[in-house]
């Protein structure tokens, strides 16, 4: 499953971050590394971008970019 398909409020664990170049480096730098737990907090009023919670902070990224992140659902707090 990719991150954009994760329902709002559900937790998941990152399996891999695909994509390339600046976007991928930025995602990794911001802490979206494998095994990290993420949760989708909300979707912006116009349907894009999305707001994530990870490592105790909030990050926003676009749905297009969330499609490059593979996750598996994991509801352990």
């Amino acid at each position, binding site marked *: 499953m990719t991150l954009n398909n994760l329902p709002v409020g559900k937790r998941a664990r990152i399996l891999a971050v695909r994509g390339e170049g*600046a976007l991928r*480096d930025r995602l990794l730098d911001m802490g979206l590394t494998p095994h990290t737990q993420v949760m989708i907090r909300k979707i912006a009023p116009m349907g*894009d971008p999305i707001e994530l919670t990870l490592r*105790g*902070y909030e990050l*926003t990224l676009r749905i*297009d970019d969330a499609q*490059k992140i593979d996750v598996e659902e994991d509801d352990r707090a």
Partner: protein
Amino acid sequence: MMIALAGNQNCGKTTLFNQLTGSNQHVGNFPGVTVERKEGVIRGHKEATVVDLPGIYSLSPYSKDEIVTRDYILNQHPDAIINIVDAMNIERNLYLSMQLISLGIPMVIALNMMDEMRSNGGTIKIEDMEKVLGVPVIPISASKNEGIDELIETVLTVAKQRKKPVAQDFCEGAVHRTINAVNHLIEDHAERIKIPPMFAATKLIERDQPIENALELNQHELHTISECIEEMEKETDTDRKSAIADMRYCFIDKLCGNTVVKPTESKQHRRSIRIDNILTDKYLAIPVFLGIMGLIFYLTFGVIGSTLSDLLAVGIDKLSALTAAWLVQAGVNPVVRSLLIDGVFAGVGTVLSFVPTIIVMFLFLSLLEDSGYMTRIAFVMDKLLRKIGLSGRSIVPMLVGFGCSVPAVMATRTLPSDRDRKMTILLTPYMSCSAKLTIYGMFTMAFFPQHRALVMIVLYALGICVGIIAGLIINKTLYKGNPVPFVMELPNYRLPSLKTTGLLLWEKTKDFLSRAFTVIFLATLAIWFLQSFDVRINPVADSARSMLAAIGRLISPVFAPLGFNDWKASTALLTGFAAKETVISTFAVLTGAGASALPAALSAMFTPVTAFVFLVFTLLYTPCVATISVVKREMGSGLKALGVVVMQTGVAWAVAFVVYRVCLLFTGWRGGAALHALDFILLGAVAAAAVLTAVHAGRHRGRHCSGCSACGDEAVCAAQCGRRHARRGQGRGRGHRQENRPVD
């Protein structure tokens, strides 16, 4: 002694900088780039200067801010680094710390927000953390001024003793082996160009091109390194960049597991989420945003700003009258008297009366930024801005543009892509800057006293609309291409600190006053001189016979089609290029009226319609010299800056012309006057343009997959388009209406 202050965005860096230096600051630029460089002397230590580096998350070579920080640290060799770390967000903050530590420069970690940490029941084992990281860690609270003295003492000590971070192994296994192997290979090269080998090795593995180029490795070395890396990738079952990031975060996770007792969820975070339930709510977000902006404009222009400005204007007039009486009494030469009263007092004084309005505008903008709401606006508006090919981040420079275009253009440096930067720079001048407020304020007072706020809002809205149209055109022509990724932190909401806001406003007031007494003062003197003498330098009784009138008459035919061909108006517009406030000071000098009498003097020159057209023109025409010079620096081309001047003035003339003709049409109808043939042509042209745009938009939606979110890259997009076309072809064949079905 040089101390560099580095840290993530939103971790209290500016607050700490203010605590370290007090008001003893100096703002400049980093050499060669327009990234703002603030430095100040550490209070009580004249020998130590601290440099505020841009807020960054990593030392990768992608954004301008990151490159500036790297280059500064690698080339300027600061004596020590203060790395400020947000204790409440420690994991992501330490990611940068690890890279800074590998630079091998004396360093101290300032662990900020410790007050929040404690009040939420969290603790950090400072000594254990120091041992693992190999650098001193000082718990502080920048906003409460706690631990700052200890921080200063520690950083001065490590700087004096040149105490480098104790070498640490951050990792084990394959990554560790590879870093060491690469380190061994490049050591000589790195030392030759004075880059710490460990840092260079890690960056090489991360595929950092600038470092690779700087090291000047030979083919054999490059080959060996890539073999090492391939082996590591195989062993860790991931790619090089991910392996390094993973290594850093694994180390941090372990460190934090051993030393940090985290509160489950902080009060500040819970509060932020509650505030966001309203401010970024699906239905409320946009109305609330419009409401907040409306309130800011209303308070700035309608309540606080204009009341204070009016009071100040009365005061300045009184002072001017007193000075005039005193000068007469003292028997001062009438020409000097005229210079002081009609020139300096009328010109500079009128502009000064708008200081409160401008300061109030800046106050609100800085509150939006410092509270954390600006990032929410970016989050909410991203999709809209993407339609003109930008990202939500561009909203920050644009909103700052309502204050002043100069910092707005400079604020574009935080945008990650060159294309976004340039496009935002081109669009920022359409956001009406606060200096133009002096013009709007005076004209609305004279012509629309009942509807001042309404007229101003219409002007601001018009600027935004023209900006959007310009954006759509630029996106399709000048800067084609895809917007860059939008990955942005949404920090917790914070109450902006009184000291930081106060210092910023003081900075802006100083800036405005120094401009009023330099650029505007000189322009005023020049105008006074040109309008008081004729070509043969004889004093003239009537300014209509002056040199200035001659110049003004030369260009006023250009404005005749806009309804105002008074030479005073064209002169005022001409001087507005120096600074927008000079438009009003020029009017004041030319009519010899002070701040209170100017509205009446303007009424003799304009009708309400031509006054409005004049305002539309001033809203859109060329930005001031200061903005143009920043645009030139940022765009890296004088020609492009000149292009901005020409384009903006052209657009201003065209829009003002349309507004004038449309206004005439309505007033003409009401007055029962016959319509001009030109009006029909114009209306026809506008209607045709509207229809064409609508048709184009409709066709556009049908043909491309602009609405499909599935395609990240162009190849996929093209493939999907191809499939859709094929399907549409089939659909048509079978008589289906499949083309209307949205894809994805």
